[in-house]
């Protein structure tokens, strides 16, 4: 009887042992899986992106909105050009060079969005083999959208700026205010995130642009993060630089000047 029980338990215990082994070597398994099936995932992702493509009306409306924004930015650029000119004169006067952080980028397509991924998280098709490591910032051509939270040989998981897992130190250049940008589940559903722990928030106003402060050395300084959409006494809400749910291509910043060097924001 005892022998029979032992025999019956042998297979379930073996299966459990195999599962625990798979968990222990999850990174290797995940790397192998993504290397083998990465191209299939890319094809399905491309097909899904084509299926998700916006309608002509949506594109026209987006075009109109962008044209308006373009004129607004051109007006802002006139002021910026003056400031830049003045800035250059000052730098020349002091014979100093502005330190521009050099960014090493690894672009890749979005491979997957898992059924259990919250707040817009996704998997990108670059991994350790490309020099990607945990906590590397993830950007699109418009600015910062997230951070690498897990990496294997061929792919990496990204948490976005909509997630409460992420805290990004940001500054509002127009008002000089600063704070920490971090999301919640409810705000993520409306495509927005919140700025808390504010200093100088009273001067912040709707439409101001938020940039990374570079404090902590996790994110490069001066990356565009989003636009303030609502200012109240309790909190400031912001819209990220991208529609996170529609991102199909992004890049990981594998290196930048000041990486890992904690310093205070200006």
């Amino acid at each position, binding site marked *: 009887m005892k022998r029979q029980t032992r025999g019956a338990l042998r297979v379930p215990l073996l*299966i459990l042992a*195999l599962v625990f082994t798979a968990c222990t070597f999850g990174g290797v398994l995940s790397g192998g899986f993504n290397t083998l099936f990465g191209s299939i995932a890319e094809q399905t992702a491309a097909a*899904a992106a084509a299926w998700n493509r916006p309608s002509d009306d949506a594109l026209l409306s987006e075009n109109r909105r962008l044209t308006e924004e373009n004129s607004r930015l051109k007006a802002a650029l006139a002021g910026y050009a003056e400031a830049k000119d003045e800035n250059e004169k000052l730098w020349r006067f002091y014979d100093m060079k502005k330190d521009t952080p050099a960014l090493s980028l690894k672009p890749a397509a979005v491979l997957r969005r*898992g*059924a259990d991924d919250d707040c817009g998280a996704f*998997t990108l098709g670059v991994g350790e083999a490309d020099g990607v490591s945990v906590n590397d910032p993830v950007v699109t051509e418009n600015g910062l959208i997230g951070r690498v939270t897990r990496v294997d040989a061929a792919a990496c998981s990204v948490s976005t700026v909509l997630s409460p897992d992420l805290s990004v130190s940001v500054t509002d250049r127009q008002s000089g205010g600063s704070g920490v940008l971090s999301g919640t*589940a409810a705000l993520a*559903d409306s495509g927005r995130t919140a700025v808390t722990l504010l200093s100088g928030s009273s001067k912040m106003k709707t439409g101001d642009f938020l940039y990374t402060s570079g404090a902590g050395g996790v994110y490069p300084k001066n990356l565009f993060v989003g636009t303030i959409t609502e200012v109240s006494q309790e909190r400031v809400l912001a819209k990220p630089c991208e529609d996170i749910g529609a991102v199909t291509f992004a890049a990981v910043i594998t290196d930048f000047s000041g990486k890992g060097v904690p310093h205070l924001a200006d």
Partner: protein
Amino acid sequence: MPTEPLLPRQIAALLAQTALLALLQSLPLPFDRPQLLVSLAVSVTGMLSLNAAMGFGAVCGVLTDLLGSNGVGCGAVALTLLCAALSHLLHGVLQNRFLTLLSLSLGAAALFHGSYWLFFRALQPESGYLFFFHYLPRILLTWLAALPLYAVNTRLLRRRKHGR
């Protein structure tokens, strides 16, 4: 308890379903979807022996984790144990009928998603909102997806029982 080994074509059909559902589950779509591999593992548990159900649960669990963003671990262990428990209940304690599986698969989907929420999301701000508006729909969708899969696989595996 069905103990006959699966026919090669039945194994092939199960693997084909697994591959197809894995592909569907990995599509980068930005809305709540069912965990199709969980639905598949739960729906076939009653038609397989304890060891086969547990093994298939382990395969689906590992695949589910590989297709997610959180690494191999929680899902694999949870689905292996869930399939073992379901198989034990369906073959040894309860009557192996559609209605039994209907309620058990709802419980399994709730346990799978609920445990993930409890361990990884419950302490985050607005975790209640996340549960009601995202995890609850996922539980229901995973449960609903198990029903057609149950119907398909009952046909596939019944032939084995009757030797056809």
